[in-house]
């Protein structure tokens, strides 16, 4: 897995929802290597914060040499990113992680909340019969772009759009079917999808999140519990940054 660490330039940034930002980074070597489901490590310019922020790749433009990220302002680091303007620079490392394995089977692509962005590039690249299911709290973002690619079902917590409830409610309400689930979102959603996939005999590739320090498999900060022994340390832990963030749901032990 090749990765690059370089100074990237912001070529575009805009706010697309409350607290949610859409940034395009010029990072040609990274863009050349990137695959859907991988992420990048974004470093702060503020020197009191040394650890990189892991952010999923939402779009890959190999011609322009850019990567797109869509992120929520969660704390100080993402706040700093949100204040950056066209022409500003930051250190970036990536692409990191394994990414999704694109299967030749009917797909359900599922994103929940801030887990939605990484599914967009997957939806674009996955050349099979597919449905996208997106779970929001209330207001939606990126929905139009998914709709430009394929059929989209929506769930909102308050029922203001689409199915009321979770992505599973939307799947059931709209009778969405497929052989393979690709998903990113909050842990309870992923856990529910793992159960759902198991019950329906489907494969589920889920993208996990954990606090990271190195981002490249060196610190053992970001493990998830797994059923099998990990090749790296020979225990039931697997590094999310290096061997994930995408896992076969069957392999993961949920807390």
């Amino acid at each position, binding site marked *: 897995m090749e990765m690059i660490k370089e100074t990237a330039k912001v070529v575009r940034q805009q706010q697309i929802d409350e607290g949610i930002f859409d940034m395009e980074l010029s990072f040609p070597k990274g863009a050349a290597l990137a695959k859907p489901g991988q992420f990048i490590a974004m470093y702060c310019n503020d020197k009191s914060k040394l650890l990189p922020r892991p952010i999923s790749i939402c779009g890959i433009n190999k011609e322009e040499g850019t990567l797109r990220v869509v992120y929520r302002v969660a704390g100080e680091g993402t706040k700093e990113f949100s204040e950056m303007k066209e022409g500003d620079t930051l250190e970036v490392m990536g692409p990191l992680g394994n990414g999704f394995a694109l299967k030749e089977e009917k797909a359900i692509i599922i994103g929940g909340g801030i887990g939605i962005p990484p599914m967009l590039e997957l939806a674009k690249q996955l050349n099979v019969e597919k449905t996208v299911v997106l779970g929001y709290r209330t207001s939606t973002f990126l929905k139009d772009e998914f709709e430009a690619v394929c059929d989209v079902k929506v769930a909102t917590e308050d029922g203001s759009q689409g199915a009321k409830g979770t992505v599973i409610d939307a799947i059931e309400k709209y009778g969405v079917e497929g052989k393979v689930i690709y998903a990113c979102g909050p842990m309870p959603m992923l856990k529910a999808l793992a159960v759902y996939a198991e019950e329906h005999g489907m494969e589920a590739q889920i993208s996990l999140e954990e606090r990271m*320090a190195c981002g*490249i498999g060196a610190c*053992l900060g*970001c493990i998830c519990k797994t059923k099998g022994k990990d090749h790296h340390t020979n225990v039931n832990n697997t590094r999310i940054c290096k061997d994930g963030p995408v896992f076969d749901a069957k392999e993961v032990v949920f807390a």
Partner: protein
Amino acid sequence: MNLEVTLAGKTFKNPVTTASGTFGSGAEYEQFVDLAALGAVTTKGVANVPWEGNPTPRVAETYGGMLNAVGLQNPGIDLFCKRDIPHLKEKGASIIVNVCGRSTSDYVEVVERLADEPVDLLEINVSCPNVKEGGIAFGQNPDALYEITKAIKAKAKQPIVMKLSPNVTDITEMAKAAEAGGCDALSLINTITGMKIDIHRRKFVLANKTGGMSGPAIKPVAVRMVYQVSHACKLPIIGMGGILTGEDAIEMMMAGATMVSVGTANFHNPRATMEVLDGMKAYMERYHIEDINEIIGCID
């Protein structure tokens, strides 16, 4: 310009090594760093058997540093000898193995298992604040430190380097205990115990509640302890704690370290070790220093 240093009878091409646990087994950084260009690669703590480590979250950011409570997850000495040592040798790296254990016999078992391996030094981690047994329990009590040092030294084929904890009232007392126990060198400092609370969720950020603080925030404590220890005993020192730049490394050596380890800096910049080395060379050029050994402990 000479960068070669000798520590505990072993010669290293330069003073820069990696801080255990921050550089994996070396392989993770190969895309950024030529492992053979380092003085040595110091590997993640390894025990006699695989360890699972602590639950997550295991890491947290702090102002100018970080906390970790990885809890010494490691593959155990068998897989380590089969996979990691041959790989490092193939890449041309000198190797310092960091050894951990829950009991004296755990440590001794690892050390014995390494007897015929192409390893330069054994760094004995008696200072990990993130495990219940072993680790820091040995590192905060001079008598216990003396005993375990003696026990390990009796069995070790390579020189042993005791890695000290900064979480003590008097670091020189610990250094003297390790010296009396017969070790060949000292490593300092390991992490300083700290805590971070997520005030929004009213929870500890780390599953382990406390973790070990590292990074530039702790450098003044590391420099102070290296200085104190270098004046309290005769052992050579591998100095670490917050080294981010070549100038930081020079400072640590002036305080009394013969070698320096780069830790948390790797997470901030995967090429940090190489940039530290380049910075040291630039400093030597600027001040016309022919031999890096000249500056070791040049401050009194």
